[in-house]
Each structure stands twice: as C-alpha cells, then as structure tokens.
C-alpha cells in the first residue's frame, strides 16, 4: 500500500500545567474520513493543532507523502494542502464573505469584482448558498462555518480538519455538512472529524481513532465496531448510572412563571418572542435547541441582565419587572452562566474571593467596616471539601484551576447562594466526564431540595437524562413544552429546526 498521505509519529506536546499529547501515532490516508473521538480534554484538538502548525510539538515527527515535513505555522500547513476549521472561527466579523476568504490569498490592489466571481463559482460548485457580499457577523453560524470551508477550498486544501463542527448546527445543517464531507472525500480528499458524538462518527467515518488522556486508546474501522465498543474505549470504565430522578410533586407551587415575554437586542432585533413557561418548586425544566436561538436571552431575562420589552416574569407571586440583578440575587435566584471565564469567575482572584462574588453587599461577611477574611476563607475551605474541588487552598487563584474545577466553584457558589430558583446554562460544556457526572448529581440534588431548576443545554442526552419537562426553542420562541416521556429524538430534532408539526 502506498505511504499514507499524512503520518504523525511519536508526537508529544506539553503545556505549562498538563501533558496534552503523549507519544501519539496517527496516520491519514488519501480519500479517507478519519474520526478522532474522545471526551473533552482527551487531546484531540491539540494533536490536530500540531499538524496545522498552531502548536509546536515538543518531540516527534510529521511526514507528508512519506517526506519529513516542517510545519511551523498554518501557512506551512496550507502550502501542504492541510486546512483546519476550529471551534472558534477565525473570521473577521465586520468584513464581508469575500474579504474573509481572500485574506492572505491576494496581493496588491484588490479587484473586488473578480474575487466575488471566484467565490460565487466555488460556492456554487459545492451547493453552498452564500452571498459573497454578506457581512460575516450577520450570518447564521451554519453559514459562517461554510465560509470557513470555502476559505479552505479556495486554497486547494486536500485535507480538511474539523473540530467539533456540529456543536453549533441544527440537525438538518449537520446532515448537509455530512453530505459535503462525503462528496469531498469521494473526490479524493481527506477529512479529519474531531468529535465526541458517537452517532456522527458511525455515520460518516471510514476509520475511528479513540483518544483518552492525551494518548491513543484504540483504532477501529467503522465496519468492525459499534457505538458501545467505542463508548467504552472512550471512557475506559462503566459510569455508575445516575440515581433515578423522582417525578416532580404535582401540586407544588409555581416558582417561576414567564408570560408572553418579548425582548429585543441592542439593534432592535427581536430575540425573544411571546415566550411563556413555568417551573414548579422541585421541578427541572430542560430547554433544548441549537445555540443562538434565544436561550442565553431567556437566562438573562430571568436573572435580570436583560429587560423584557413586554410580558411578565414572576418569581412566585412577585413580579420582577424593574427588579435589578442585585435584588434578584437577594430574592434567591442563582445563575450558572454558559461562559464561566467571562461571566462566572474572576480569573485573577482567589477561590475565596470568588465565593463571595454575589454576597459582598450584605452583612454576612462583614466585621465592622471590613471584610472578615478568616470567615470567608473557612467557608471556601468547606466548599472545596464538599464539592471535591481540586485546589491547593482557598488562596489559589481561579485561573490556576482546571475548567472542571472552575465550574465546580461556580456551581458551589450558586447552589449555596440560591434559595428558590437556579439556572444552569450549558453547565457541562468543555468538562471531562468526571466533572460532568458531578454537575449532573448536583443538579438532581437541587431538585430534591425543592428548588426550581432551569436547565439550558445543547446536549440532548443531558436534557433527556435530567429534565422533567422539556421546552424546545427556535428563533426566540418556544416550539412546545412536553413531559419528557412524550418526546423522541426525531421529534425534538424537528422542533429544534423549526417544524412544529404534530406527530411522533
């Protein structure tokens, strides 16, 4: 057999705090679709970033078509025909589609019309419906991803690496992406698909490589394996099943009620449309939907960082119109935000200081005019113990903690600080399985305590495992609220894409 297109030998990559890749050996053939499977933190993105020249390996070699290759930058990778589409797109928002595609690929005076023509042709060839003159930041995420793909195609890429591409797509957009992958591979090109979703892997991959803790833990051809085997390779052991969640008490009082809530963003665009829902004490309402359909705005309207333009938001009997964030915290609303580093944690402050983030106003931590540092530290120590946060002590800076431990810190703080309602927005994004399990157990614990729980997540498995009722959001409106038992994967997929037809 001819030498594989790409071969990576013995690649090791260290970061300041962790070994990301340990002696990884990987090969990719021409016309092959390779799925790189593993949970968060397994090292999949890292190894591909080494191939793409974003990272420099600490040891090991890369061979392209049998020849040693020096890849020191993405430019080197591109000249060898290797392109990568990352989770966070490298697009310039305020620029047009053409400007983005042409960046770095054109010299001297730009002939706008010629470039536009070329882009239009390329898009047409693969069936992408994109206006070259559109401003990128105004495009839906699925289209932005297509712009990234066009950029790679414009430069004649022979290998496209995609990092978790379906995280931001509707089920229908994912289908269309899979179609592109198959067509592209059939034309003799290669694709590496980084993901943690078993279903996609079985759909589109020729060969599957499983990674765990920075090492390769198995390689299988698609025909020779199934989801269960892959899952156990990925995880390494059986997870204890979650304790069965008791059904919510029927007659419990309603803790949160939204009625016909509308909201607009800064530019006047409607982001929430006649939204109504209610959550009882001791009940978990899961909100499913592709990200970007108003879920964040829903959380904001409840926690107070966004005002509804019409409709009412009630906590128990209390109307929250005009009630600010600080007061809502005092009323007992907790919020675990989606972007923990930006919204949940002050990275430069210590664990102890982060614990009092929402409670600095009251008398609780005061001794005279000053802060009672000893009591704050003691309370932080208890949280570290109760939530198994891996940290040297309450003085440790938040930025020194791993993502999972930072999330535990936020969860601990919000759980302690909320009395009536707690909102979880993408609580397990980017976490390893151990931390995910912990968060799930905590969420169920909150329900047992009698709090109302609003759970927003793009991971359908999470929604199904934890929720009592499930709401599906699409373009700022609720497509329906159903008891868990009444929904199937297929139906939820249709609802997420905007089809509100009846029938299973």
């Amino acid at each position: 057999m001819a030498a594989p297109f790409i071969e990576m030998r013995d690649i090791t990559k260290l970061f300041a705090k962790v070994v990301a890749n340990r002696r990884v050996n990987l090969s990719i053939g021409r016309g092959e679709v390779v799925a790189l499977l593993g949970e968060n933190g397994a090292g999949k993105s890292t190894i591909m970033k080494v191939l793409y020249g974003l990272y420099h390996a600490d040891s090991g070699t890369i061979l392209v078509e049998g020849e040693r290759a020096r890849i020191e930058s993405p430019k080197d990778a591109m000249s060898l025909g290797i392109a990568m589409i990352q989770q966070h797109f490298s697009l310039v928002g305020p620029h047009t589609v053409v400007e983005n595609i042409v960046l770095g690929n054109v010299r001297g005076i730009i002939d706008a019309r010629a470039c536009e023509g070329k882009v239009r042709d390329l898009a047409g060839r693969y069936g992408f419906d994109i206006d070259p003159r559109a401003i990128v930041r105004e495009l839906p995420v699925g289209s932005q991803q297509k712009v990234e793909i066009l950029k790679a195609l414009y430069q004649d890429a022979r290998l496209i690496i995609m990092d978790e591409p379906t995280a931001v797509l509707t089920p229908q957009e994912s289908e269309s992406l899979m179609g592109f992958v198959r067509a592209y591979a059939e034309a003799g090109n290669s694709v590496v698909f980084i993901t943690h979703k078993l279903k996609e892997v079985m759909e589109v991959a020729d060969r599957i490589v499983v990674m765990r803790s920075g090492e390769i833990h198995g390689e299988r051809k698609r025909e020779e394996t199934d989801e269960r085997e892959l899952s156990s390779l990925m995880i390494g052991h059986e997870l204890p099943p979650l304790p069965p969640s008791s059904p919510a008490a029927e007659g419990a009082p309603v803790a949160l009620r939204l009625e016909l809530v509308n909201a607009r963003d800064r530019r006047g665009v409607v982001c929430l449309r006649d939204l109504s829902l209610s959550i009882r004490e001791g009940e978990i309402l899961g909100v499913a939907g592709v990200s970007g359909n108003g879920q964040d705005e829903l959380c904001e309207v409840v926690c107070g960082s966004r005002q509804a333009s019409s409709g009412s938001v009630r906590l128990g009997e209390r109307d929250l119109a005009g009630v600010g964030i600080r007061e809502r915290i005092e009323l007992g609303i907790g919020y675990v935000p989606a972007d923990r580093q930006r919204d949940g944690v002050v990275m430069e402050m210590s664990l102890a200081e982060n614990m009092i983030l929402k409670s600095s106003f009251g008398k609780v931590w005061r001794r005279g005019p000053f802060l009672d540092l000893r009591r704050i530290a003691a309370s932080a120590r208890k949280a570290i113990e109760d939530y198994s946060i891996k940290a040297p002590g309450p003085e440790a800076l938040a930025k020194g903690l791993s993502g999972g431990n930072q999330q535990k810190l936020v969860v601990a703080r919000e759980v302690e600080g909320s009395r009536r309602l707690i909102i979880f927005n993408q609580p397990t994004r980017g976490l390893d399985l151990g931390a995910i399990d912990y968060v799930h157990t905590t969420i169920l614990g909150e329900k047992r305590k009698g709090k109302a729980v609003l759970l927003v997540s793009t991971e359908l498995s999470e929604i199904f495992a934890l929720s009592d009722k499930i709401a599906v959001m699409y373009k700022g409106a609720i497509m329906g609220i159903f008891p868990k038992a009444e929904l199937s994967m297929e139906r939820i997929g249709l609802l997420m894409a905007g089809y509100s037809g009846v029938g299973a």
Partner: protein
Amino acid sequence: MINLLANALLMSTPLLFGSVAEVLAERSGMMVTAIEGIFLIGAFSGFVGAYACKSLLVGLAAALGSGVVVAALYGWITVYLKQHQVVTGTAINILVAGLCSFLMRVFFGVPVIPLTVEPLKKLPIPLLSGIPLLGPILFAQNALTYAAYLIVPVAWFVLYRTSLGLTIRSAGDNPEAVDVAGEDVDALRFSLVLVAGAMGGIAGAFYSIGYLGMFTTNIIGGRGWIAFAICFLGNWNPLGALAGTLVFGVAEAVAISMQSSGGGQLVPNELLIALPYILTIALTMARRSFNVPGKLGVPYAKEG
C-alpha cells in the same frame, strides 16, 4: 476670513499627519500612546537639525529619524514584549520630555535671546493660487501642508483597496485570522508603529521649524494627544480623521486670531487657549464609537 481658513489648514497639518498615522496603527490593533513623545522628539530634533546645519531639510530628516527611533522602542516593548500600551507610552513620554529639556540645556545652555530658525516658507503654486477664494486657502501653503493633502487619499486607498489594507483591518479585529492566513501580525503592527513614528516626528517638527521657528519644552502642549483623540473621533477612518482635523484646525486658528486681535476683552485668554481641549472632551462624549477595532490595545499572544 480667508486668512482664517488658510490658517486653519495650516494648523491642521501636523494633526493630520498624526491622526492618520494613528488611524493606520490602531486599525491593526495598536494604540500608539507614545505619540505625544514622538511629536516632541520630532519638534526637538527638527529644530536642532535645522539650527545646527542651517537646513530645514536636515531638520525634517532628523525629526523623521528620531520619531522612528522612539517609535521603535515603544513598538518593541508593546508588540514584541507584549507589555501594556498605556503604561509604556506614559513611560516613554516622560523619558522623552526629560531628554529634550536635558539635551536643550546641554547643547545650548540658557541663551539670553531665544534661538530661532527661519520657518518653512509659503510656496504658492503659480496658477492655482490665483483662483479667487480657494486659491489663497488651498494653494498658498508650505510644503508640509501640500504633503498632507496626499496623506488622506493615499491612506484611504491603501486601507480599503489593497491587500495590505485588508490585512491591517483584519489584524485589528481578529489577529488570529491574519496569523492563520500566513501573515506576521507582530511585524505588521511594528511596521505601522514605525510609520506612526515617522509621521509623528514630522508632525512635531512642523511646530518648531514649520511654524514657530523655535523650540520650547512645552511647544507640543498635548497636541499629540489631540491627534490621538481625532483618530477616535474620526471613527478610525482617514476621511473621518480629515474631518476631525479640520474642526480642530479651525478652532485653533480662531483662538489664535482672537488672542492677537485683542478678543481677550470679550473672552478670557485662558478660555481661548483651552478651547481645543474642551472641544476634545465634548466630542469624545458625543461620539458613540461604532468602529472600534475589536482587539485594539490587546497584544497578540500565540498559544502553542
């Protein structure tokens, strides 16, 4: 009135050099907070060069060169060492201020009569300066002002119609995209800082050898910062910078003419002197910046 407008254009010249240079640098993500120091060293070197060699050309060359040197120091620390732009700029401004007074004293001691050079002469363009109204305003200026006329269209063209301009604009919003496209973000930013050094140096020299004909330690008096402010107020666009510059040029020309014509009876002198600064404050509050380059002021640090 014609005199006033001609003067306005004259006073706009250094602000135009400075603000357009700032626009180019800031579009790539770099705030050149050392701009005040660059203006000052330009004024100083321009004067020293012109006085010592009895040639304005040598003065201008010295101004340009010294501006580039100061900008290089600033650029090295902020672009390559990734240190804080405001803090570094402040340090350099203090150092340059000290250096200029120090060297002034060392070179010339304390002269009884202030030293002067012959400032730039007006060069009326033969036919065009005869046009009624516009002629004396636009075409009877000095060489630097004529050079300034070219700056805006050139900068605009480069920024919006060339691949270099596309790269510059992209670097200020998402430097990673530029990096991935194979361009060197740091080298680009550093070069633009050097350009700002050159243009700022010339702008500074305008005050000493282009207009006043002498050098005093507070000759710049915050005008480097006004050029910096004009970049903000002009929405990071060379045309906007032109508009902002003209507004300030008019304000400054009005202040000067009122002071010399004894307008100090109606309006206190101090208010006239403070006018450009009050104007900056008012405009800074009024302008809701739409076009701030997304990553302005943030050093670009690669991960791996």
